[in-house]
C-alpha cells in the first residue's frame, strides 16, 4: 500500500482540476462528491498506508517520482518522505480535511460559488499534503506557497465585500514576509551545504557546523521567520483574526487544523538545525510563551464567536512553539494533533451556530441555545473542555506534557503556560456560557443536516479520546523530552491540572451564576481601557498601521505623480519651449530667410578666416 503514497496529494489535485475546468457544468449534487470524494480517497489511502506503516518497523519510507528540476549541482526531485512525523501530519490533513469537506457539503450548499469553494479547498488540501510529505525544502516550499494561495483565495471567497478582500490581502502579505525570510534561509542552507534534501541537510549541518556559530543561528532564525508568518506568532500574528472573514469550514480547516500548524511542522522537521542554534530555539520558546499570553488576553475581550476561536488558535500554537522551544518535540506534534481535532470541532460547531442562527457572529446576541441545539452544545462542551485541557480530554494529555517539559527547562515559561491555561479556561467557558446558557433571544432558524452532524460527532469522539492516539516519535526526534510518572503528583503537576479549573470557576462566577458582573467591571475607567486594548488584539494592528502602513501610504501619495518621471517630463517641457522660441523665426518672409542665410555665411566665413 505504501507505494501509493504519491497518489495521496494527487487525488485532491485531480479534484481541483475537474472542479476548475468543469465545475460550472457539473450538476449541483455531483460537486460535493468530486470535492469531498477526492479528499475521501486520500483519507482512505492514508488510513491504509498508516496501518501498514504503524504495523511495520516505522522505518522512514522514501519515494522518488521524477525530477522537478535537475541542474548541474542542484536537483529537486518530486520526492516524498514518510516517517512518524509526516504520518501524523498526513492523518491530520487528510482525515480532518475529509470531515471538514463533508461538513462543507452541507454548510455551503446554498452558496452560488459551491464548485469554486470545493475547487479551492481541494487545491489547499493537495498543497498541504505536498508540504508535509516533501523530502526536500524546495518541494516543501512549493506546498508552503500553495497553502498560502489556497488560504488567500478562501479568505476572500466572498469577494463581493471589499472587507473580505482586504482581509485576504492582509493574510497574504503578512505571511509573505515570513515566506521571504524562509526563502532566504533556504538559499543560505543550499549555498553552504549544497543540497535541498532535508535529511541530508540535517546530517551535513550536524557534521560541518559547530553549535552556536553564526551559520546555524542565522539559517535557523530565517526558517523561524517563515514559521512565525505561517503560524501567526508574534510579531506576525495579526492576520489570523481577520482571516475569519472566510467561510467557517475554511477557518476550521486552514486557520485552525492544518495550515497554521505548518510552522510547527517546519521547525519539528528541521529540529536538528534548531538544536545547533540553542539561542534561536530558546527564542522559539519565548515567542511561544508571549504569543500564547497576548492571544489569550485578546480572546477574553472579543465578542465575535469566530474571533474568540481565532485568538485561541494563536494561543494554542503558542503552546506548540513553547514546546518546540524547550525541546519537547513530540509533545508539540502531539498538541498539534489534538488541537487539530478539538479546534476543528469548535469551529464546525461555531459554524453550526452561525448557520442556524441568522448568520449572527456576536455571542451576546445569542444565548440559551443549549435546548434547541443539543448536538452543537455538546460538541462545544467537549471542544472547550479539550481546549482548556480538563483532565481526560485529548487536550489535557498534550498540554500537560508540554507544561511539564517547560518546567524542566525554565519555570518562567511554565508559569506563563499555566497562566495561559487559566485564561484559556476563562475565555472558552465564557463562550459556552454566553452562547448556550441564559435566555434565548431569538428562535433558531433551521436545523443541521446529517452532513454537518456526522463530522461533529466524529470530531467530538476524536477530541475526547484523541489523547490515546499518540504516534511514537522516538524514530524521529532525539531524546524526546520524557515526561514520565516519577513526578506526576507533585505540586507542579497539581498546579498545571488546577489552572484550567480556576479559569472555569472564574467563568462560572462571571457568566453563569452572575455573582460578579463583567458589565459592571467594564464600567470602571481603567478596566474599559484594558478591555479596549485586548479587544484590539493588544494594539498590534495600530502599531503596524502607524509604523508601516501609514508611512508607506504617505510616501506613495507623495510619489503619486511619479517623482522619477519629472526628469523626462522636464526634457519634454524643455524641448517644447525651445520649439516655441525657434518657431518665431519662421516668419514666412523670404527676405528674412535670405538675410539669415547671408549672415550665417558671413559668420562661417569669419570663423574660417579668423581661426
Amino acid at each position, binding site marked *: 500500500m505504501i507505494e501509493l503514497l504519491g497518489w495521496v496529494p494527487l487525488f485532491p489535485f485531480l479534484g481541483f482540476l475537474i472542479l476548475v475546468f468543469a465545475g460550472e457544468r457539473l450538476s449541483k449534487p455531483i460537486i460535493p462528491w468530486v470535492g469531498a470524494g477526492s479528499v475521501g480517497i486520500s483519507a482512505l489511502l492514508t488510513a491504509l498506508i498508516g496501518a501498514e506503516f504503524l504495523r511495520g518497523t516505522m522505518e522512514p519510507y522514501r519515494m522518488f517520482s521524477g525530477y522537478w528540476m535537475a541542474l548541474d549541482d542542484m536537483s529537486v526531485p518530486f520526492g516524498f518522505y514518510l516517517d512518524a512525523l509526516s504520518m501524523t501530519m498526513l492523518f491530520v490533513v487528510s482525515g480532518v480535511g475529509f470531515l471538514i469537506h463533508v461538513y462543507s457539503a452541507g454548510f455551503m450548499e446554498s452558496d452560488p460559488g459551491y464548485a469554486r469553494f470545493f475547487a479551492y479547498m481541494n487545491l489547499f488540501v493537495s498543497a498541504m499534503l505536498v508540504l508535509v510529505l516533501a523530502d526536500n525544502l524546495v518541494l516543501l516550499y512549493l506546498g508552503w506557497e500553495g497553502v498560502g494561495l489556497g488560504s488567500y483565495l478562501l479568505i476572500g471567497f466572498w469577494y463581493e465585500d471589499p472587507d473580505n478582500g482586504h482581509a485576504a490581502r492582509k493574510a497574504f502579505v503578512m505571511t509573505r514576509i515570513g515566506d521571504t525570510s524562509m526563502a532566504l534561509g533556504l538559499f543560505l542552507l543550499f549555498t553552504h551545504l549544497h543540497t535541498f534534501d532535508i535529511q541530508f541537510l540535517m546530517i551535513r549541518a550536524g557534521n560541518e557546523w559547530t553549535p552556536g556559530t553564526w551559520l546555524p543561528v542565522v539559517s535557523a532564525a530565517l526558517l523561524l521567520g517563515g514559521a512565525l508568518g505561517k503560524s501567526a506568532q508574534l510579531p506576525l500574528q495579526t492576520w489570523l483574526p481577520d482571516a475569519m472573514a472566510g467561510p467557517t469550514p475554511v477557518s476550521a480547516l486552514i486557520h485552525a487544523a492544518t495550515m497554521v500548524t505548518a510552522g510547527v511542522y517546519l521547525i519539528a522537521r528541521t529540529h536538528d538545525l534548531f538544536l545547533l542554534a540553542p539561542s534561536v530555539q530558546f527564542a522559539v520558546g519565548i515567542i511561544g510563551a508571549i504569543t500564547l499570553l497576548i492571544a489569550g488576553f485578546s480572546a477574553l475581550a472579543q465578542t465575535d464567536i469566530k474571533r474568540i476561536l481565532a485568538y485561541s488558535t494563536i494561543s494554542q500554537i503558542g503552546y506548540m512553539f513553547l514546546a518546540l522551544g524547550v525541546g519537547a518535540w513530540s509533545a508539540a506534534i502531539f498538541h498539534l494533533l489534538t488541537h487539530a481535532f478539538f479546534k476543528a470541532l469548535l469551529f464546525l460547531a461555531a459554524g453550526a451556530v452561525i448557520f442556524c442562527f441568522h448568520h449572527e457572529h456576536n455571542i451576546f446576541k445569542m444565548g440559551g441555545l443549549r435546548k434547541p441545539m443539543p448536538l452543537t452544545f455538546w460538541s462545544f462542551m467537549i471542544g472547550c473542555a479539550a481546549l482548556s485541557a480538563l483532565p481526560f480530554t485529548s487536550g489535557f494529555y498534550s498540554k500537560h506534557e508540554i507544561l511539564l517539559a517547560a518546567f524542566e527547562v525554565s519555570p518562567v515559561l511554565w508559569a506563563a503556560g499555566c497562566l495561559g491555561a487559566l485564561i484559556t479556561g476563562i475565555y472558552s467557558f465564557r463562550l459556552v456560557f454566553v452562547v448556550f446558557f441564559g435566555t434565548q433571544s431569538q428562535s433558531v432558524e433551521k436545523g443541521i443536516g446529517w452532513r454537518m452532524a456526522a463530522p461533529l460527532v466524529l470530531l467530538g469522539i476524536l477530541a475526547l479520546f484523541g489523547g490515546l492516539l499518540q504516534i511514537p516519535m522516538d524514530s524521529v526526534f532525539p531524546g524526546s523530552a520524557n515526561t514520565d510518572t516519577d513526578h506526576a503528583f507533585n505540586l507542579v503537576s497539581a498546579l498545571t491540572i488546577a489552572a484550567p479549573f480556576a479559569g472555569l470557576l472564574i467563568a462560572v462566577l462571571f457568566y453563569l451564576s452572575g455573582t460578579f458582573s463583567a458589565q459592571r467591571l467594564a464600567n470602571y475607567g481603567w478596566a474599559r481601557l484594558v478591555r479596549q486594548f485586548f479587544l484590539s488584539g493588544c494594539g498590534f494592528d495600530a502599531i503596524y498601521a502607524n509604523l508601516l502602513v501609514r508611512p508607506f501610504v504617505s510616501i506613495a501619495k507623495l510619489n503619486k505623480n511619479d517623482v522619477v518621471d519629472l526628469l523626462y517630463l522636464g526634457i519634454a517641457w524643455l524641448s517644447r519651449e525651445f520649439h516655441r522660441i525657434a*518657431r518665431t523665426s519662421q*516668419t*514666412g*518672409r*523670404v*527676405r528674412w530667410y*535670405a*538675410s539669415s542665410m547671408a549672415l550665417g555665411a558671413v559668420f562661417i566665413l569669419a570663423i574660417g578666416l579668423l581661426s
Partner: protein
Amino acid sequence: MNEIPMELGLLLSVVLFVLGLIGVLVRRNLIMILMSLEVMLNATGLAFIVAGSRWGQADGQIMFLLILTLAAAEVGVGLGLALQIFHRFHTLDADSVSEMKG
C-alpha cells in the same frame, strides 16, 4: 596690352555681389529680387573669369558657362513662380506672401 590686376577684378565682383545681396534683402518686388539675384550670379561669374585669366586656365570660362545656364534656369523657374504669385495674390510684394509661417 595693359593687364588689369586681379585684385581690381575681384573687388568689382565683390562690390557687385554685395550690391546684389543688398538688392535681394531690401527690395520687396519679386521682379527686382530676381534681378538682384542675376547681379549676384554675374558677380560670381566675373570672379571666375578674372581668376581664369589670371592663371591662363579655361576652367574659369567653363564655370562661367555653367553659371550662365544655371542663371537661365533659375530665371525660368523664378519668373514662373512670380507669375503664379501675381495670379493668385494680385501682388508682387514678397512680404505679403508670408502665409507659411510657424
